């Protein structure tokens, strides 16, 4: 289907469901049922089995019509990670149960993967899931969970068999965050905010029907999820989108702060940011119909480095004002904007860009091994039973 018939389909839908008079949730559910939620999803799952590029056209038409959206910024994990994994590995029942309320935003999702002892080495998770009849009983501690306080469900990685080697003893679950064994505590960051949480699981009971994929297949399922996170190359921004735009505007507004040194550093970073934008555009062209590959890791490396250098530069440029900060009060933001707030926040928050979603060190390993074909790291832990690995 090309753009024109899809456009007609949206128009027909809008004719039947007038955004100005239809209840928001009713509108969104109908949009899902009509296959106009995410057109690259299958028919019956909110989509029409079309190419993913067509989605932006659909979004544009709904925005133009003044239609309500599903507030995608509030359900990033759900839309970006849980949904594609459920679509790929879920049973029919799971897809029926979870995908529609996920897309409409009725049910927010979070991610229970990382642990204090399982960061870069995610396969080292020690949260334990024991089978008990038709249920699984889960205990352990998770960390770096954004939006846990608002989430109804979580995607969860837990160890079901400590006698297996680390990658083989894991299973993937869909966890109900309202279970009484789930305790969410805000995790404060260097910015002063608590954008993430720690989640303590104590004998949380998960029905067998909420296991995603086979027992012992958790690592494979989790990797499908993570590929969706790491390789997300974004939608492509205009020139001076993101951090460079903010800093360039500061430069233009404050000529009294200019020095020759900062001028050259800014221009270097302007060039790098623009080249990075073009690299993203080129990668999107390459991947137009294919699968995202490890090349996306290189993009993320550049993104983090440039954002960090720019935000550091901005404080030097601001000089006296760079010594100030807006507010250290502990808040739990619903929505994170790396370039929001003041320059001090931007500087501190950018430090996370090279840690979250795969540290820059891990990404360099990925590029070296999967793109350049260099040998993997020496691994002592691959074939040992997990419980025998030195922790």
């Amino acid at each position, binding site marked *: 289907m090309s753009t024109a018939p899809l456009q007609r389909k949206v128009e027909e839908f809008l004719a039947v469901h007038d955004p100005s008079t239809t209840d928001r949730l009713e509108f969104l559910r109908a949009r899902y049922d009509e296959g106009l939620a995410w057109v690259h999803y299958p028919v019956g799952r909110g989509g029409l089995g079309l190419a993913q590029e067509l989605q932006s056209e659909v979004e544009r038409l709904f925005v133009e019509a003044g239609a309500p959206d599903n507030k995608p910024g509030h359900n990033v994990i759900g839309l970006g990670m849980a949904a594609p994994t459920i679509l790929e590995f879920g049973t029919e029942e799971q897809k029926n149960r979870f995908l529609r309320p996920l897309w409409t935003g009725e049910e927010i999702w979070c991610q229970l993967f*990382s642990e*204090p002892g399982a*960061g*870069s*080495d995610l396969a*080292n998770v020690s949260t334990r899931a024991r089978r008990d009849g038709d249920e699984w009983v889960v205990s352990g501690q998770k*960390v*770096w969970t954004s939006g846990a306080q608002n989430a109804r469900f979580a995607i969860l990685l837990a160890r079901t068999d400590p006698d297996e080697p680390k990658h083989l003893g894991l299973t993937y679950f869909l966890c109900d965050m309202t279970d009484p064994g789930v305790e969410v505590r805000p*995790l*404060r*960051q*260097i910015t*002063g905010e608590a954008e993430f949480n720690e989640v303590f699981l104590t004998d949380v009971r998960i029905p067998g029907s909420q296991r995603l994929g086979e027992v012992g297949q958790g690592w494979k399922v989790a990797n499908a999820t993570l590929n969706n996170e790491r390789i997300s190359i974004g939608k492509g921004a205009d020139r001076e989108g993101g951090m460079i735009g903010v800093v360039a505007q500061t430069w233009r507004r404050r000529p009294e702060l200019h*020095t*020759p*040194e*900062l001028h050259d550093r800014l221009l270097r970073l302007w060039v790098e940011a623009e080249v990075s934008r073009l690299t993203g555009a080129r990668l999107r062209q390459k991947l137009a119909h294919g699968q995202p590959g490890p090349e996306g890791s290189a993009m993320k490396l550049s993104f983090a480095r440039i954002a*960090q250098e720019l935000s*550091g530069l901005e*404080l*030097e440029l601001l*000089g*006296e004002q*760079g*010594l*100030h*900060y*807006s*507010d*250290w009060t*502990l808040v739990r933001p619903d929505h994170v904007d790396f370039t929001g707030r003041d320059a*001090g926040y931007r*500087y*501190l928050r950018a*430090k*996370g860009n*090279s*840690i*979250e979603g795969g*540290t*820059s*060190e891990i990404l*360099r390993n990925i590029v070296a091994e999967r793109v350049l074909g260099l040998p993997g*790291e*020496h*691994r*002592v*832990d691959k074939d*040992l039973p997990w419980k025998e*690995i*030195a*922790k």
Partner: protein
Amino acid sequence: MSELDLLYTEIEEDLRSSVRDLLADRCELDAVTRIYDGDRSLVDGLWKSLVDIGLAGLLVPEDRGGQGASAREAAVVLEELGRTAAPVPFLTSSVIATTALLDSDTALLEQLATGERVAALAVPWSAAPDAQLPAVRLEGDRLTGTVTSVAGAIEADVLLVATGSGLYAVDVSAVTVKPLVCLDMTRQLADVTLDGATGALVLVDAEPAVRRALDAGAALMASEQLGLSRWCLETTVAYLQVRKQFGRVLGGFQALKHRLADLYTGVESGAAAARHAAATSAEGDPDATVAASIAQAYLSDLAVRAAEEAVQLHGGIGMTWEHPAHLYLKRAKSDQIALGTPGRHRVRLGALVDLRP
């Protein structure tokens, strides 16, 4: 030039030990972190205990009630204060304000030496030694003007205010001190407003004293930055020696080893630059100004890099409020801007060593 001692004398090492012991007792990093939430209960007791071992008067001559020590010893104290991001007015009062008063016969110097009073020089903390000084007007015997972002003002009971007609000591009760929310709350800044305040003239010629004070501050802040950098390096090395991922300690991964080797190389170089700045300052060496700017140009960036590497190499834990790495990152970034950015010091050096634009 004859070669200056760039190491530590035995006396300096003894001084370091006492300061380190005291800070280990009195300056827990958790308590430092609580300053960000407004709990400054640590500060007074910590400062008092530093005063008790005579640090407030380190740079004051013995005949004026001080220890008669030199910039070398003050630098060692600052290394230790930098290692704990200690929230005390040593640099602002005992180094910068004190240096400004060394040529004055004011009794205030004696009072600073004994810790009876604490002073701050009223300049923005970002001011380089050669920066334009803030304009405070003298009308009759009344001072009027605003000086923004003053370091040490919150802890001070007297401010040193430069005017075209001299340096004045102004009691804080005579001015408005408005604390600011700062990137580095362990050295919280304040805007100071003088609205017809009276002060005591302590020096007729303010500018040379202020510039000398800022230069001493720049030379010695390098040692604070050195101490901070060493903490970051040592803490990161220690963490990577025990933190395991993939069944191996992280410190065994060569990419991390090489980064730490490079950081070590930087820190050792920083030690030489900081010691040189302290030694030339102590000797009144003609190279002292050049040495101060070299030290600032080098250590400001080194400390930021050390703190950034500490956060990164600690991984997620380094991004948390709970881990102290962020205290050092904020101090390092703030110090980078303080007393002139590295870029500003390089421009100054260019003029001093005949490498002009």
